[in-house]
């Protein structure tokens, strides 16, 4: 089956780089390609570009310019935050995170257990909101770091960062947040929220891949993971990825100007998609918080059928999404996020994530609404569970 459709609804995995970002980057591959550490004129021009990007990022999250440290992306920023703070001290030996973190945080925390750290994973409720009572009881004088994501990549639930930092700071713990899914999508005021460290990544909001940043508030100590030259104030050695940094800056620039209107437009499309699915397919459920959720994320579970088989059918119709089904993960384990939210295995199995973005159009949503019910009908006709549970064929 061939199709002319090319409906990319996997923007939480990565976004297409905005052409305006690409355009801004191009001169920095050849014309302005000197090393920003060089003191000659060519080097100074590259340095200016790097510092300009740093300044734009600081405006996007409301921090000081010198608090932005460039990294190779979200994963490195998460590693640097967690390992960097752990390496900088010897007194506190507990790290608190949540059960629904991205693997960049979860695996890093689990790794720190090998070095004598106690790792506590805060549970979440049915909507994916962290249990503040549990957190409050867990934080103590031995707690070094509380690392909880700003919004979850699978279901889009937005965590109450202000309350989290209040609880953590009572005992002097540092708060890190993985804001990879929120940066450029919703306003972030790191100051008002009281966040100490924040990870962001370019490719999740129309910037290039392989560039990100860790924002570290003044006074928060952390050790570098990369040693070498004096880059990034000795906190991250290595010649700067200048085109990437410039692209990241441009992505932030666009977000500052368009975030509010884009959020509204994307949310309207997502609501239409959900309504279209909900009205035309029975036995579906919405995963994630009904309101406190990223405007672009729609995670649904379709009962009695499995996610990969839905994805393959959608793919045939030129629609690209993702699933938390065990069958789609290399490890054959269902999404840890959905399971932590209390979904039974069967519903995690039938989960689908549509994540919308800047380049989606209304007619693409219409296309999904048109073909999806038929895909579900076809797969349910094969499913032994459908008959069993409903008495229909």
């Amino acid at each position, binding site marked *: *089956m061939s199709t002319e459709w090319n409906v990319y609804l996997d923007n939480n995995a990565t976004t297409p780089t905005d052409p305006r970002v690409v355009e801004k980057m191009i001169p920095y591959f050849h014309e302005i390609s000197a090393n920003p550490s060089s003191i000659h004129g060519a080097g100074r021009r590259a340095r200016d570009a790097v510092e300009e990007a740093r300044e734009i990022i600081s405006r996007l999250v409301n921090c000081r310019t010198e608090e932005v440290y460039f990294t190779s992306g979200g994963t490195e920023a998460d590693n640097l935050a967690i390992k960097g703070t752990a390496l900088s001290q010897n007194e506190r030996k507990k790290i608190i995170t949540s059960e629904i973190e991205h693997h960049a945080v979860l695996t890093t925390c689990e790794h720190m257990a090998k070095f004598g750290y106690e790792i506590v994973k805060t549970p979440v409720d049915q909507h994916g909101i962290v249990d503040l009572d549990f957190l409050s009881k867990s934080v103590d004088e031995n707690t070094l770091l509380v690392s909880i994501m700003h919004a979850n990549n699978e279901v889009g639930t937005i965590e109450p960062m202000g309350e989290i930092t209040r609880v953590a700071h009572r005992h002097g713990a540092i708060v890190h947040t993985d804001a990879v899914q929120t940066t450029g999508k919703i306003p972030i005021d790191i100051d008002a929220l009281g966040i100490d460290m924040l990870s962001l990544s370019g490719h999740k909001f129309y910037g290039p891949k392989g560039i990100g940043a860790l924002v570290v508030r003044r006074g928060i100590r952390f050790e570098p993971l990369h040693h070498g030259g004096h880059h990034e104030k000795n906190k991250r050695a290595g010649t700067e990825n200048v085109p990437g940094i410039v692209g990241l800056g441009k992505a932030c620039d666009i977000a500052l100007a368009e975030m509010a209107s884009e959020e509204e437009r994307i949310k309207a499309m997502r609501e239409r998609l959900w309504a279209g699915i909900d009205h035309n397919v029975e036995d579906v459920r919405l995963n994630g918080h009904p309101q406190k959720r990223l405007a672009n994320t729609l995670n649904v579970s379709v009962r*009695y*059928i*499995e996610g*990969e*088989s839905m994805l*393959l*059918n959608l793919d*045939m119709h030129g629609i690209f999404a993702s699933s938390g*089904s*065990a*069958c*789609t993960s*290399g490890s*054959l384990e*269902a999404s840890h996020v959905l399971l932590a939210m209390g979904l039974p*295995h*069967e519903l995690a*199995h039938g989960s689908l994530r549509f994540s919308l973005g800047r380049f989606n159009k209304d007619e693409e949503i219409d296309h999904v609404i048109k073909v999806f019910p038929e895909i579900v009908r076809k797969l349910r*006709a*094969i*499913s*032994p*569970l459908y*008959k069993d549970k409903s008495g229909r064929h």
Partner: protein
Amino acid sequence: MQYSEKVMDHFMNPRNVGEIENADGIGTCGNPVCGDLMTFYIKIEPRTEDPDEARIADIRFKTFGCGAAIAVASMASEMAKGRTLTEISSMSRDDVANMLDGLPPVKMHCSNIGVQAIQEAVKDYLKKIGRDDLAGRIKGCPKKEN
């Protein structure tokens, strides 16, 4: 991950989907790895207890699972049709995977449950006609799920 054209063909157009009323044997096998489910329904002809004579005359299935699981069930059903019970008891997951021009390594376990569920259906038939001894010799599904 890439599926072969044959897998995609059987996935998009699965053969022998459905159920058989008054089936001679019904077999279900669940996937301990990812939690999927397959049920096969078989009709036997002639309905003898001689496993070298009795053949699968008709076969239907239902599957809750991934693309590979659906393709495996479809292919296995085609392969099983017309076979004697002895032949079914020696069918392996590799036979099905080979007929599908291979499966990605991570999907080989889906091939297991296809064969095992059909073998369960055969066991069910043998038990129904009072030959638990013969049924006991067929491997079937390792962990019975109901």
